[in-house]
């Protein structure tokens, strides 16, 4: 059943985010009007934060009535949005990260729109049984926050490619307010990747514990190691393992690191896609299995 009380704030937040994006583009293009065009973006992002907070608290206190914050996919997306929106708001006020919001806001809009879909059409609560509940909550939490880090890293990577392209083509030289430096963006990618790597590692470990120690039949089955989800997750983990050492590996520095950050996010999203596809197949094939664990 559609969760309208969650959907409406999410729809409003998506619209506010799109409005903020438009304003941010205007701000970057009309650099001399910086002072007059900054506050509407901040107001819009503030509104997104408030709406996400409202929806998250509402779901926690009214819908779930439990301390477990992530009980459905929409909760995870809300959690990411709730963390990402203030993070973008913060970067707006940092001159050294000028322009970053332009690359992060489309991600936020995408996640919010995804959240709308997850409440209106594809709403499914996770099955948190008593044995794996703690592990699952931990697994889901670190996975979603890890996804947030990966998204930040990918946004940084996309911006790196954009800024580097402009520097190489010598476009926009002499801008009153230049975009974030390549070094800042590389640092951002590195930090996001490092945090993402740690969280993905925790996610993999907790996932491993869940599939190996649970006496219930997991969605992955006994041959969990041959699942595309596990392979994709391992591939993403390796990408981030390389990425966090990028300053030591000269061959993957610069553009290649930026592409790796984007590739990492794509792999993480592909892992999610594999999970969804796998779950649907499992549900179709074994609809009588009562406790299929909805992993991330």
């Amino acid at each position, binding site marked *: 059943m559609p969760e309208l009380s969650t959907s409406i704030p999410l729809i409003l937040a998506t619209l506010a985010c799109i409005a903020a994006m438009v304003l941010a583009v205007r701000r970057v293009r009309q650099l001399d009007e910086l002072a007059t065009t900054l506050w509407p973006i901040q107001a819009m992002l503030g509104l997104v934060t408030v709406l996400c907070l409202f929806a998250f608290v509402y779901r926690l206190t009214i819908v779930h009535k439990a301390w477990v914050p992530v009980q459905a996919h929409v909760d995870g997306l809300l959690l990411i949005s709730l963390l990402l929106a203030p993070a973008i708001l913060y970067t707006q006020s940092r001159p050294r990260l000028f322009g970053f919001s332009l690359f992060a806001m489309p991600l936020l809009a995408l996640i919010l729109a995804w959240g709308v879909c997850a409440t209106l059409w594809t709403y499914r609560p996770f099955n948190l049984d008593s044995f794996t509940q703690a592990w699952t909550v931990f697994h889901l939490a670190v996975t979603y926050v890890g996804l947030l880090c990966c998204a930040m890293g990918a946004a940084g990577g996309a911006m790196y490619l954009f800024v580097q392209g402009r*520097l190489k083509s010598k476009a926009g*030289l002499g801008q*009153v307010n*230049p975009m974030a*430096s*390549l070094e800042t963006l590389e640092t951002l990618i590195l930090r996001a990747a490092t945090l993402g790597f740690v969280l993905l590692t925790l996610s993999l470990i907790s996932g491993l514990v869940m599939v190996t120690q649970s006496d219930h039949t997991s969605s992955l089955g006994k041959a969990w190691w041959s699942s595309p989800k596990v392979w994709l997750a391992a591939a993403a983990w390796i990408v981030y393992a390389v990425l966090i050492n990028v300053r030591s590996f000269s061959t993957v*520095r610069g553009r290649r690191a930026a592409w790796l950050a984007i590739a990492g996010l794509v792999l993480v999203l592909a892992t999610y896609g594999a999970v969804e596809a796998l779950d649907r197949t499992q549900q179709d094939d074994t609809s009588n299995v009562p406790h299929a664990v909805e992993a991330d």
Partner: protein
Amino acid sequence: MRLLMLGFNHRTAPLELREALAFDNERAAAALHELRQRYPASECALLSTCNRTEFYLARPIHDPPTIEHLRSFITQQTGADADAIHTASIHREQEEAATHLFRVSAGLDSMVLGEPQVLGQVKRAYELADGCGAVGPVLHRLFQGAITASKSVRRQTGIDQGRTSVSSVAVAFAKNIFDHFGDKTVLAIGAGEMIKASLASLRRENPKRLLLINRTQQRAIDLAKQLELTGTDHGGRAWDDMDSLLIEADIVVSCTGATEPIVTESRFKPLLKKRRGRPLFMLDLAVPRDLDPKIGSLRNVYLYNLDDLQQAVEATTSGRRELVNEAEALLRGHIDRCMGEIRHRDIGRLVKQLRQRLNDIAQEEQGRTAKKLASLNGQSTEQAVEDLIAQHNHRLVNKILHLPLSQLDRSDPDASMGFYAAALRRLFDLKDQPDMPMDEASSDT
């Protein structure tokens, strides 16, 4: 004398052409000597900087060289393509030529508005031409006037204060790549004014190491001392250390007088691997360029040259338009005074020449009349002497008026009748009398 200027600058000519047209001191002196030999009645000076190559000439009004002569002279001297020279050159005459030099000296025509270096370059160009004996009274007055006016305008408007300097733009460029400079190594190649200014700006960002290299190492060491770059991390290094320094450097600023690239792609490419993918910001302030442009296409290398700086600087100078207007208004007074003096000097010479010519005619006629008087052999009557005087006067007037009146010859299609007629009326205070009416003429008879 007629004043001419033929030149090329960062607005009219691309960097490649400016490189081909650049004259170092030796070549400039040779070019000035050659010009003086070809056109001995002319005065000439050559201003050659990173951003401009300009010839200034003062020649007798109807004598060569013309602008076309100058263009072909430059083509011969530089070997640059004649069509490119024709397309990229600008030329100015008389007051416009003077205005151009005054604007250049005041930094109003510079890439960086109000930059002070150009004044020194104008002074050196003047001194070089003077040293070659190529400067005469007109160019003396013009260059001295331009230098004086430039100082005055800078003082009164403060146009050289708060400007966007090349060095500050260089730092801004570097900030597109680096977040901070505390762990960065800056390498400066050269020891000239541009390097000094750039290092002064970069130093304010507190880089970890500031190193200088120059073919003459002592000059690099001296500049380091001048900039108070002390300690093991800073100072001059040997020219032979360039490759190892290029591996260590994060920022390279180069401005030497070399006529060929110092760092070529083939030299730099093997060093890239040893840099372990660290980004490198390179700024080539030299013309001709010191750093091979192909280096800019290598991975993690960001190479910029003077034309790129121009693009950046122009974006930031639009807000100083009022200051430019003020400076130009002040320059106008200086230019008018200078051109007034040059014209006055020309008129003085003209009057002297005219006097000489008339005296010569008078002397000649006096001699002829004296001979005729002597031939009378004491039989002179009052009437005969009067006739001689009348003939003398007639010949004198005819000879004096012959050339001016021949300009009024209606058969000459090139003659500017109206101009000469007006000039004669004005010079001899002749009234423009109407033709006598027919009836009035008939009543007199």
